């Protein structure tokens, strides 16, 4: 099975209306492609949650965590996902008033 586990936290739960889901991928699919297609499926520009108009992460960009590792958002196109990987979409960490 070419599936990966997608976990959703914070506002991503609202966007997808669920906590987690399994998605099928072709081996070697880039993270950028997965994010773009997920966004298309729910009718939002999901990429803009992570990358600003200038192509750089914003000050408080959301996070993508793959197998416990935080992904460099500027290199989503070079991050290839393999079946069995665990992807988390999460808001940035908040702290200290």
């Amino acid at each position, binding site marked *: 099975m070419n599936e990966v586990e997608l*976990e959703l*936290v*914070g*506002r991503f*739960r609202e966007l997808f209306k669920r*906590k987690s889901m399994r998605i099928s991928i072709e081996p070697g699919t880039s993270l950028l492609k997965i994010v773009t297609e997920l966004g298309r499926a729910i009718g939002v520009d999901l990429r803009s949650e992570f990358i600003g108009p200038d192509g750089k*992460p*914003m*000050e*408080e*960009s959301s*996070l993508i*965590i793959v*197998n*416990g*590792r*935080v*992904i*460099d*958002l500027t290199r989503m196109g070079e991050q290839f996902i393999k079946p069995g990987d665990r992807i*988390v979409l*999460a*808001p*940035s*960490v*908040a*702290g*200290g*008033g």
Partner: protein
Amino acid sequence: MKGYAGKYLIIDLTRGKTSMGRVDESFALNYIGGYGFGARMLYDMMPKPAEVDPFSPENVLIWWTGPLAGTISSAGNKYAVFAKSPLTGIFGFGISSGLFASEFKSAGWDGVVFTGRSEKPVYLTIDDENIELRSASSIWGRTTWETEEMIKEELGDESFTVASIGPAGERMVRLANITNERNRQVGRCGLGAVMGSKNLKAVAARGTKDVEVFDIEGLVKFIAELNERCQGPATEKYRVYGTPANILVHDKLGCLPSYNFQRGTFEYAEEVSGEMMLKTHVKKIVACAGCPIACDHVNQAREAYAGTVSSVDYESLELLGPNCGIRSLDTITKAVEICDTLGVDTISAGNVVGWAMECFERGILTKDDTDGVELRFGNDEALLEALRRMCLKEGRLGMLLSEGVRRASQIVGKGSERFAVHCKGLEWAAYELRSLQTSTLGFAVSNRGADYLRSGSYQVDVKGQVDRLRLDKSRGKIVYDGENQYAVIDSLIICKFTRGVFKSMGELAKLYTLVTGLSMTGEQILKAGERIHNVARCFNVKCGVTRKDDYPPPRAFEDPLPDDIVKGAVIRREEYEEALDGYYECRGWSRNGVPLKRKLLELGLSKEAEEVGVEA
């Protein structure tokens, strides 16, 4: 000079006398306000801090607002309190928000300094120019919430804001805090206990004056822009979920401390998550004066604790929840209420109870030591009972926990020091030690002990900008930069939740100039931040702090994390030493962590250079 009131109160509690000091332009430009004023004044007023018992009349208790308090500036209504900390024995400092700072400043004062000790319990009223020390005999022993209501009733005026201590502060519990408007606290370093030692129950303030600003048109325009940014993505998480949104993110990153920092994930994280809390427990979301964000999520407990109401943020939720193995939001809401009303810091409280639970499970503490309490992880009733006894110093368990985790572990011995998660005596907050290693460096070198609020160094770890499971020399620069920026933020004093709203230090300097009329650039204000940080460090050096004190606890080096996603993560000692060297180099300090004379002179700190500075 606008923005500032230009004067502060000096209250001699021993003699019951009041006098006044002036805030001049040079003081303002060099130290900004808040943290800067407090550091400068504590250093000057306590020439030999190592010889001062924090509970003695010789300790000074200093309250400052910043230049933004009482103005329309977004999220700038904060005040800070300073003293030698009874918990850490070094520079003690805490910040609170709400309405208090705005009223205080509108009364025409920038700050108040308390010296000596009152013979009998008193509280201070500041009603514009009318300053009065009143008897607190009828409110001594009351909770913080009762105290607030009783003082307003006694003064016959609901518009007074009240900052008070609870029974814990009166009993000089070393974790005691100061509370204003029920849910806002000067939480850390045990400054409530210093109030208790001075027989000072509360400060009540009411102001009717406008705080004048230099360029009202420019300020209105700039604030409108900032407020609009505050409604954008940079602050959305605070507005919707509040900081409890961190629970699940940290769990997914393996940096959610659980079972007294033995692990970095919690198997019941979903049950205590911000997402769950919003759905089942949050009844109200509250904003501080002038804040366009509104982050304060007020919970109402159900079932066994129906009727309990408390404000639950990430740190409280985490330390009293997963760190103690607790999975019930009702219990956590009740635990926060106990801490808030009796008056202790939830972070330190959750940390020290977590330590005691680990000691109990390891057989180091027995039922004899806990007065019969089955102090195991996940025991809801045991947590609540331990907190209550700690706040009231009741029995052997209460007396032990009231000392804070460092002293408690030294009292118990038997190797329990190894499980005490603190730095310089301040209990570690809710960021895992080994899976956020830049953060750990930032906590460990902080001026007030294990501190998540002085550098924001966890941000590079959680954003994936560095390898968070390793350290290297470059991390020192990250912590150094963060500390200088946060020193500015804490001196202005402005809420850190707006840090993503300001695009540069230049914008903070612009805000300062619009309010005060004093010319300031981004570079100059950052230099002031560096100056302030160094003054506080010099105070600590006088207290005996050196390199030996800038390390995380043993667990960081000795106990690899067991959680799958960060399995085996541990801090390598040689990497830590390298990162610490890198930090000292950036700071211009010696390898022993003492500021060099030349650095202090470069910052205009000639007194510190002479008294503390060392040659290269």
